[in-house]
């Protein structure tokens, strides 16, 4: 489904990604973790081309995103993305947030888009808030809306960039619950997160990054019970209490 081959990226002279290679298969849930500044957020943003890369190759669903002739906008509409700070559009109601891209990108009718939006809002338990504005919702609610917004596009894969890091602790679970449900339904997911409980519960694989490199890319069991590198051991010791 997703394939990264020797992806390298520089900010000026500073190399943020060093020859990252990995694959995410259909229906697979891959958690990306690592200390802050390790490049994990940058890595996930390269997957749908939000961050350009200078070297390497990224392929989603047989389409090479690094190929200049690829219609990036069209490809991105198939790749759902959820951000740390939700990034709902503040000037649009919750419903409009969910219908905008359906209408403008997929060409769905207003009625069709509205129905889809309402059914997904219902699914994340926020149907009653359809006509509110983002600022009228709590962080946890906003993030659930953001997930629903991405799902409206019928994505073939979902990318999560630290979806719970900006939330108050009591709101983390309501968002994770939605993600767990999604994973159980067989959605292909790539998730940057520090929530090791989530990783233990639903991840198939864990990628551990440090200093722009993929240090470990292994099964969940292997990662939690028998991490190979000192850096991963050190990281796990700090994060798991």
């Amino acid at each position: 489904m997703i394939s990264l081959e020797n992806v390298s990226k520089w900010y000026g002279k500073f190399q943020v990604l060093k020859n990252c290679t990995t694959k995410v298969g259909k229906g697979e849930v891959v958690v990306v973790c690592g200390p802050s500044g390790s490049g994990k957020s940058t890595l996930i943003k390269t997957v749908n081309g939000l961050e350009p890369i200078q070297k390497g190759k990224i392929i989603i669903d047989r389409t090479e995103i690094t190929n200049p002739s690829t219609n990036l906008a069209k490809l991105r509409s198939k790749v759902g993305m959820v951000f740390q700070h939700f990034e709902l559009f503040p000037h649009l109601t919750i419903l409009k947030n969910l219908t905008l891209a359906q209408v403008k990108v997929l060409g769905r009718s207003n009625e069709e888009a509205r129905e889809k939006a309402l059914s997904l809002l219902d699914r994340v338990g926020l149907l009653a808030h359809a006509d509110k504005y983002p600022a009228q919702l709590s962080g946890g609610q906003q993030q659930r809306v953001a997930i629903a917004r991405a799902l409206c596009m019928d994505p073939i894969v979902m990318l999560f960039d630290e979806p719970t890091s900006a939330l108050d602790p009591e709101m983390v679970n309501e968002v994770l619950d939605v993600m767990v449900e999604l994973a159980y339904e067989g959605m292909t997911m790539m998730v940057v997160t520090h929530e090791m409980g989530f990783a233990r519960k639903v991840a198939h694989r864990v990628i551990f990054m440090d200093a722009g490199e993929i240090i470990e890319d292994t099964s969940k069991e292997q990662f939690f019970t028998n991490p190979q590198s000192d850096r991963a051991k050190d990281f796990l010791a700090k994060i798991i209490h």
Partner: protein
Amino acid sequence: MSFNWTLFFESTPYGDEIYLNWLFDGIIITVSLAVTAWIIAFLLGSIVGICRTLENKFLNGFAAGYIQLFRNIPLLVQMFLWYMLFPEILSGSLKIWFISGISPNVSAFITAAIALGLFTSARIAEQVRTGIQTLPIGQRYAAIALGLTNRQAYMYVLLPNAYRRIIPPLTSEMTNIIKNSSVASTIGLIDLIGQIDRINDATNSIVEILCGVTIAFMLINYAVLTIMRFVEKQTRLPNMNHGG
């Protein structure tokens, strides 16, 4: 020294007008000039400001040069330059029409609207640029990640939010354009400022006239502020953030 405060209600030497009519004529020209120049400034300023936020090096560089050019030359100099240059860059029948087909007040109005519009557009461009650049980068990411094209991201996400943010500086730019329109009298436009001389020539009561013109400017700008307060209220988003 005694003042004649009923001056504006006295008859003028021509026809059955009173001096208040002349003052109103000035107000109409000043407001028309400001509105025309504002339309030019807002459209061009928006385009140039958006160009400043694009990755395209050519458009970005062009916009930067445009802003430097029109922002760094005094308005008075720009006004004179357009007064001299504008008839020269026209050609054929358009040139003849501009020089002899219309009254001097109309040609002065056109020239002044262009000069004032371009001058102000550079300032608006900077505000539009700032409005866009102070939006969280994630807004652009979110729009693009949903599959919107760059153009759609600007139209449906970035600009509606950027313009909301810059309503206060745009409001003060509007009051500036009304005050700056006074420079147009230097190329012969009979606006509010132009009426000062005209009425003074007939009445020799400069202090009273200046008081009248002062009040007129204050009323115009008060109207602008009232309108913009209404616009701001209409576009304000509900904001009852409770945590997160």
